[in-house]
Structures are given as structure tokens and as C-alpha cells.
């Protein structure tokens, strides 16, 4: 029994740091997903109290609007806070991220967490429906500011990761081609590598478009829409990369079988 405990303790000590990084990252993401869900629920409750007040304009129902509205605004702040923390954890633990991006994200997150605390204080002091309306409008503007800088840097980080993977894939394609050229009867292999090369070229175009689009994640403007557009380019690049990998894998199997 003691030995088992000791073995587990030693294994935990050795693997602990590696497991901890993964656990912190997945924990941060789970926290964001949970906060997002809670924010949606709070919004639904708030909308319902507004409907209730529209049909029955009692002071109690009006007070419920203020109460649920405050809960909703706090939940929205929880959501953005969780996202910022998750993105910071992700960037700090990604070996592919440059120090410049890591530092930029960390500094923006720190600055925005302080802004979030100010917003929380203001929301907690709301007592009337008019004040709630004013605070909501203020938060809508502030919300974009809280997300924009970090979103732009996260986009830059994703572009960097995309380019790293593209370089690795291009390198593999070149090595496979070098091997294929040495073989007789290699037409089918070269055809697959040509397809892979074409996919990689399209992926590069998509990554470049994503990079240009993420640079437009700015205020004033439509930062979240531009962020979504950048993401769509990267989703296409991901599909291109997977197609290229598939073609390269088939070429690899054919070369190995010769």
C-alpha cells in the first residue's frame, strides 16, 4: 500500500509539470465555455423579465428587470474575463508563439482585467432601470474594446502557427518529391505530390488573407466581424493542409511499398 502510494507520488512528481500545463489550458477553456453558457442563460432570463414587465407593469416586475439585467451584465463580464484568461494561458504555453506576441497578449489582458473590475463596480451600483440602460450602452462599447486588441493578437498568433505548419508540410512535400524522383514508374506518386503542393499553395493564400483580415480587427470598425472573417480563412487553410497531408501520406505509402 505504502509502495503504491510512493510510486504514484514519484510518477506524479515526474509527470506533474507536463500534465499541469495541459490541465491549466483545458481548464481555462472549460471556464470560458461555462461562462459563455451562463451568460446566455442570464440573457434569456433578463429577456423574459422584460416580456413579463411589458404585459404586467408592476414595480415588482420593473425591479426584476433591474436585478436580472445586473446579473446578465456581470455574466457577460465573466465571459469576456474567462476568454481573456484562456487566451493568455494558451499563448503563454504555446512554444510556437513569439515573445512579442506573448508579451503583447499578457499586457492587454492585464489592462483589460482592470477595466473589467471597474465595470463590475459600476454594474453593482445600478439601482434603477434607467441606470441599467445607461450602463448597458456603456458596456456594449467597452465590451468591444476589451476584446479587440487581444483578438487581433490571437489572430496574429494563429497566423504564426499556420505558417509554421505550412513550412513543415512544404518541407515534407519537398523531401517526398526528392525521394519519388529517384524511383522509376513514379507518375502516380508525383501526381499526388502535385496535388499536395497545390493544396499547400491555396493554404498559404488563405493564411495570408487571414493575416490581412486580422489586421483590420480594430476600433472603430467591425472588429468581431473581421475576427470571424479571419477565422474563416484559417478554417479553409486548415482544410487545405489536411488535404495536403492526406496526399503526402498516400505518396509516402507508395514510396515505402516500392
Amino acid at each position, binding site marked *: 500500500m505504502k509502495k503504491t502510494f*510512493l510510486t504514484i507520488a*514519484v510518477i506524479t512528481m515526474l509527470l506533474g509539470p507536463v500534465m499541469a500545463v495541459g490541465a491549466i489550458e483545458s481548464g481555462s477553456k472549460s471556464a470560458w465555455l461555462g461562462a459563455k453558457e451562463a451568460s446566455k442563460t442570464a440573457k434569456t432570463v433578463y429577456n423574459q423579465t422584460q416580456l413579463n414587465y411589458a404585459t404586467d407593469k408592476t414595480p415588482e416586475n420593473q425591479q426584476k428587470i433591474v436585478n436580472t439585467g445586473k446579473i446578465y451584465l456581470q455574466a457577460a463580464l465573466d465571459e469576456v474575463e474567462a476568454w481573456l484568461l484562456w487566451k493568455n494561458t494558451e499563448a503563454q504555453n504555446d512554444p510556437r508563439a513569439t515573445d512579442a506576441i506573448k508579451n503583447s497578449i499578457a499586457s492587454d489582458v492585464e489592462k483589460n482585467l482592470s477595466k473589467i473590475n471597474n465595470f463590475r463596480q459600476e454594474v453593482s451600483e445600478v439601482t434603477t432601470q434607467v441606470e441599467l440602460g445607461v450602463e448597458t450602452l456603456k*458596456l*456594449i462599447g467597452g*465590451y*468591444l474594446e476589451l476584446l479587440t486588441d487581444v483578438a487581433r493578437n490571437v489572430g496574429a498568433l494563429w497566423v504564426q502557427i499556420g505558417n509554421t505548419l505550412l513550412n513543415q508540410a512544404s518541407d515534407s512535400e519537398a523531401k517526398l518529391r526528392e525521394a519519388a524522383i529517384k524511383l522509376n514508374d513514379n507518375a502516380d506518386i508525383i501526381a499526388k505530390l502535385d496535388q499536395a503542393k497545390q493544396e499547400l499553395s491555396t493554404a498559404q493564400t488563405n493564411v495570408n488573407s487571414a493575416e490581412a483580415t486580422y489586421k483590420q480587427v480594430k476600433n472603430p470598425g467591425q472588429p*468581431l466581424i473581421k475576427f470571424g472573417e479571419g477565422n474563416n480563412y484559417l478554417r479553409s487553410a486548415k482544410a487545405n493542409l*489536411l488535404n495536403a*497531408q492526406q496526399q503526402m501520406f498516400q505518396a*509516402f505509402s507508395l514510396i515505402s511499398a516500392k
Partner: protein
Amino acid sequence: MMKKILVLSLIFVFSLALGGCVKKATQPTNPIDSNDYEQNTGENPAEKPNTEVNPDSTKIDPGVTKEDLDKLKSDINALEFEDLTGLSE
């Protein structure tokens, strides 16, 4: 109890260190390159006929391994791009 844990931890660390020493001892510390070979024997290995039969001598090295390609696929699949919505909706 604490003493036992301490002793067993020391044994574990010592065995790791010993394992490392044994592994190190079985490896040449300075691999012989063709220049060393030439100095020692006066023969150039590049000119020496290869009498060993290599059954895979006609095989072409693909340049990458299956593991490389699997790793690439898993790295690509790990990419996730979450859109942002929220209060501005």
C-alpha cells in the same frame, strides 16, 4: 514513514542516475568519422568496397517518417478558431 519515503525517493533517483550512466557507457562518446578512420588505418572507407549484403539496398528513403506525417495531421487537427460574440449581439 517520512524516512521510508526519503529512502525510497533516493533509491529511485539513484537508479535513474545509474540507468543514465549505463546508457552513456554503452554509447561511443565520440563517433569515428571517415577522417579518424583514415588516420588510424590509412584507408579511405569511401574507396573500400562494401562487401555486406543489404537486402534493402534498392529501397528509397522517403525522407519523412509515418510519425512525422501523423504528427503533422494531429497538429493541424488541433487548430481551433473560435469566433467571438456576446454582448454586442
